Each structure stands twice: as C-alpha cells, then as structure tokens.
C-alpha cells in the first residue's frame, strides 16, 4: 500500500490495515498518540496498555511494548508497572465502559493517589465491542441495546462527566483535558501535554477523547460527524480542565 507516508513511525506497519471498523474513531486517537510518541521520541520507554473493549484490537498496533489487560483493569496494571519502574512512561488506553463503569474505582483511586501514569479514554457513548449497550456516557434519550426506548435519566442518571470528575479528585499537579476526534490537532496537543506531565514525574494525566462508532450508532459518515460535533458536544465540553501551573486552553 502506498499510504505509508502518513503513518506515524511508532505504528507497526505489519499490522496495518488496522482491525477497527471503517469510520471508527479509535484509529484517529491512536494516530494522534503515535505522532506524539514519535515527536517525543519515547517508543523505547513507553508501555502501552489496552483494555478489553474495541481498544483490545490495538494489542499489536504500535512498535511499542504493549500489554492487553482485562476489561477495566488497564489502569492498575500500568500503575503497578510504573511503580516498579519509574523510567517507564505508562499509557492506559480504554473505552468509556472500561474507564467509567467497571474500571471507575481504579481511575478514581489512581487520580486520587496522583499516580504518574497517563490514562487515555475514548468516549463513544456506548459499549462498542459488545454490540452497543448503554454506557455511563450514553446521551439522554439515546437508544442503545439496553436502553431500547431511549436512555431515561430518571432511572439511569445523566451522562458521566469523566474529566470533570477526575479534575475534582486529583491533586494540583494533575493534567486533565477533553479532546475530540473532530479536532485532532488540538487532541494531539492535549495528549502531548499529558505525556509530558507523567514524563516529568509531575503528576497524573487524563485525556478523554470524544470518539466515533458508526457501527453501533448505525450512522452514515455525515450523521456520524454530526453526532460527535453537535449532540455529544452539547453534553461534553471540549478543552483543558486542569493544567499544572499554567493557563488552560479551550
């Protein structure tokens, strides 16, 4: 294939084309991440952890040491690794189900302990891998396989505000932001600052990326982008939420 020049160096060409669905948001996030790994030249000391969820499809995605863990357990595996080897740049990559539902205790407690790891979370408003069930981030009224009549916030609460929650419980040296695949340049900037935060041993870092799941949203290209840029943006505010000793952007 001749699309090679666009591929970050840290991407493993042997495993491309990747295994995500056409139009998926995961590869866009992983491209931003790959470029940051290139720019900071840290492939040799990065450990990429992927969750169970569609992120598991990235288990052989990078030319970077990678660990596929259990659903929701990527954060503690990477935390344990970083505690045992401080030279490691630990990245835990997961979906909204993995981070805000089953793994929420790990996210909360790692942030509270100010672990020096970077948690990167793809928010696609539902459980992608298992076929589109309701997630903590599902929008009010949104139909999913387990909210077939639309999410009823009376019964299931409002969409979880992940970065805001992490910002509220983490120390002042944490970096917290929400980006979107609708603005990859900005997302990349957030990822870079997050990685620098853990590289310099300053504190916890968390970035949520608003992502795309045309397969389970059952949307065409146009509606897919409309959903992330209009519907999701109504509930999830894009921008930096916590920046150690700096002015926020966005």
């Amino acid at each position, binding site marked *: 294939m001749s699309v090679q020049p666009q591929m970050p160096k840290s991407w493993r060409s042997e495993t491309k084309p990747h295994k995500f669905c056409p139009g998926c948001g995961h590869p866009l996030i992983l491209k931003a991440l790959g470029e940051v790994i290139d720019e900071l030249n840290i492939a040799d000391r990065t450990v990429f952890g992927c969750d*169970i969820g569609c992120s598991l499809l990235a288990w052989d995605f990078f030319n970077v040491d990678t660990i596929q863990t259990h*659903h*929701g357990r990527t954060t503690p595996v990477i935390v344990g690794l970083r505690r045992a080897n401080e030279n490691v740049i630990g990245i835990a990559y997961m979906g909204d189900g993995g981070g805000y*539902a089953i793994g929420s205790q790990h996210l909360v407690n790692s942030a509270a302990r100010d672990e020096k790891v970077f948690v990167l979370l793809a928010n696609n408003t539902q459980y992608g891998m*298992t*076929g589109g*069930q309701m997630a903590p981030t599902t929008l009010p009224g949104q139909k999913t*396989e387990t*909210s*077939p009549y639309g999410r009823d916030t009376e019964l299931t609460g409002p969409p979880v505000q992940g970065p805001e929650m992490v910002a509220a419980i983490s120390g002042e040296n944490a970096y917290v932001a929400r980006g979107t695949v609708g603005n990859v340049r900005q997302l990349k900037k957030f990822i870079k600052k997050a990685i620098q935060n853990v590289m310099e041993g300053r504190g916890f870092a968390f970035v949520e990326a608003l992502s795309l799941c045309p397969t389970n949203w059952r949307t065409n290209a146009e509606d897919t982008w409309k959903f992330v840029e209009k519907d999701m943006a109504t509930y999830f505010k894009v921008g930096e939420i916590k920046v150690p000793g700096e002015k926020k952007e966005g």
Partner: protein
Amino acid sequence: MTKPIEGEKKVFMTGNEVVAWAALAAGAEIMYGYPITPQNEIMHYWTRMAPKYGRKFLQTEDEISAGFTCTGGVLAGKRAFTATAGPGNTLMQEPMSMAEMMRIPTVLIVCQRGGPSTATVIYSQQETTMTCYGGNGEGFRIVYSTATHQELFDYTIKAFNTAWKYRFPTFVLGDGYQSKMRESLSIYDPEARNIEMVRAEPYVVKGGVPGENRDPAHLRNTYNMEEELYEVIMDHAREYEKIAPEIIEYEEYECDDADVLLVAHGVVSRAAKGAVKELRQDGKKVGHFKPVTLRPFPEKELLERAKAAKQVIVIESAYGQLDKLVKSHLYGCSTPIAQYFRPGEGITIEEVVQETKKYL
C-alpha cells in the same frame, strides 16, 4: 396484566431469547446485568419485553455490582436474576459467595465462553469448576447444566423454584453455543403444566415493627469464633446433603448393558448421545450418562453405571473440570476412566465415535 406466554407454544429461537422468555414466564421481577458476550442478548430481549409486563432492569457498573444488586433484590423478596459469562462469572463469585453464606436464593444464568482470562467470546465448558465451587466457600450451590433449548427453558424456570424452595444460590450453566444457536422448543406458562411457582419472600422489611411485634432481621456473614463458623457451615452441609436427593437430576441413554460409558454434560452430551446412537447401530455396547445437576452431583447413579461398565470416558470442552467431578464421585470404583478434552472447542459426534472406537 396479560401473561407473557398463554398456555404453550412451539417456537424457533436463540438460547438467549429462550432464557429471557423463561425468566418472564417464571415471574422474575427484576434482572440485574452487565454486558458481556455471549450473554448480551438475554439483556437485550429482557429490556425490550420486561417493561410490557411491569418487570424491571438495572444495568450496573460491573458484575460485582450486578451480583450484589441481585442479592439486594432477593433480600427485598423479589424473584431476581442476573446473567454473565467468562471473566464476568469470575467477578460474580464474590457476590455468589455471600449468597452461599447467607442462603440468598439468587439465580444466575452462565453462558460459558473460552477461558482463562478474556480468551474467546465463543464457547467452552471451562466455567464448570468455578460455577460449582467458586469463591472461598464449599460449593453449597445448585447447578443445572443444560444441553438443549428445551432444557434451557425448563431449568431456567425450575432454577427460581429450586432457589426459593431450598434457599441456596442456583445456577443455570449454559454456554455460548446454546446462547447463539437457534433451534425449536416449546415455551409455556408454568401454570399450563401445573408447575407452581414457589413464593418469594422478603428477608427484610417484612411488615410490622422490629422490636415491637417482630424480631428485627440481623443478617450476617461474619463470625467471631471458629466454633461459630464451624456450626454454621456444618448446618449448611447437613441441609445440603439432606435435600440433595430431591434435587439431583440426570439422564441415561442406552446405559443398561453398556460396556463403554460416555460421561458428558451440557451441550457436549448431544455429541455423546449422537455417538451412542451411531455405535449402537453397529451393535456396540455403548451408553451415555449425563449429569443434569453438577451440584449436587448424581453420585450414586453414576457409580452404579460406572461399576457395571468396562470403561468410562469423560468428554468435555475443558481440560478436566468434569473429569475432576466424576473422579471424586467415583471413588472406590475400579473401572478405568479415560479422557477426551477439547478445552474451549466444540465436540462433534464424529469425534466422539472415533474416540470411543479406541476402547471397543
């Protein structure tokens, strides 16, 4: 409100759909769950149908929570259930261990998938040991292993009754094949078959004023002294052993004069049965014994058949989980026991025929 099923009818559907219908027919009032393949469609069907019959659903943040919320539903006096698979079943073991200790009649449908860890989302019989003996307990549980959609329907209904009658956590052990395949069966309103549903009763908030006209409920799972715990566990053990003969179920196929006895449970017993049919046509003396309850295990019945045979073969889609059960119950029997293990993989009639021929 109308009944989910009037009388009886023949249908052609997937196993996950069967479970949802059975739970509705059994009068289950609330399901708690967390997504996992191959269990998902139980929740999908339930969330579509349940509101029409005034039943409820809660999607929790994980299986630890699905299991514990389910115990809460039961303590409130509702026929409550949950369903899971694989790594979800692993997490379920904590709440199920509390249910075992506190005699909480939860119903859990297990759709076994490949293991250990995340493994495959497809199929296996590798959750046999965990479903029978998971958690830090003694396995005081009731486990039905089903082989057909008809059994899946029958035993899902029965699970609610067994659980509430005997007050031990009850499990229906299915698998990914059963979840996803379509075949025919009859679904029915239990009443149409004169099946009476055992009443569910609250453990707490039973009416009256605690301390005034009734004793308060003080439910616990922690004991101060070894002797206290010992008494509690021995009580459970005596009770469990006493009721076991009433609960035990098994199926025998051509066992009467069998020299070679094939032991298999769940969906694998279909292959064993098919193999016996084929080998019998060639005049081979082969029979099949299928334990339907894995806990309690039909020990006496298997022992009798095994003693009369010249060879036992244990066949399973796991690496020795049924084999362990069988051996522990065949203590003292001198008939040789052979194994055919395909961990995480389906087993066909052809394979069983071929394997059995080695011993004929």
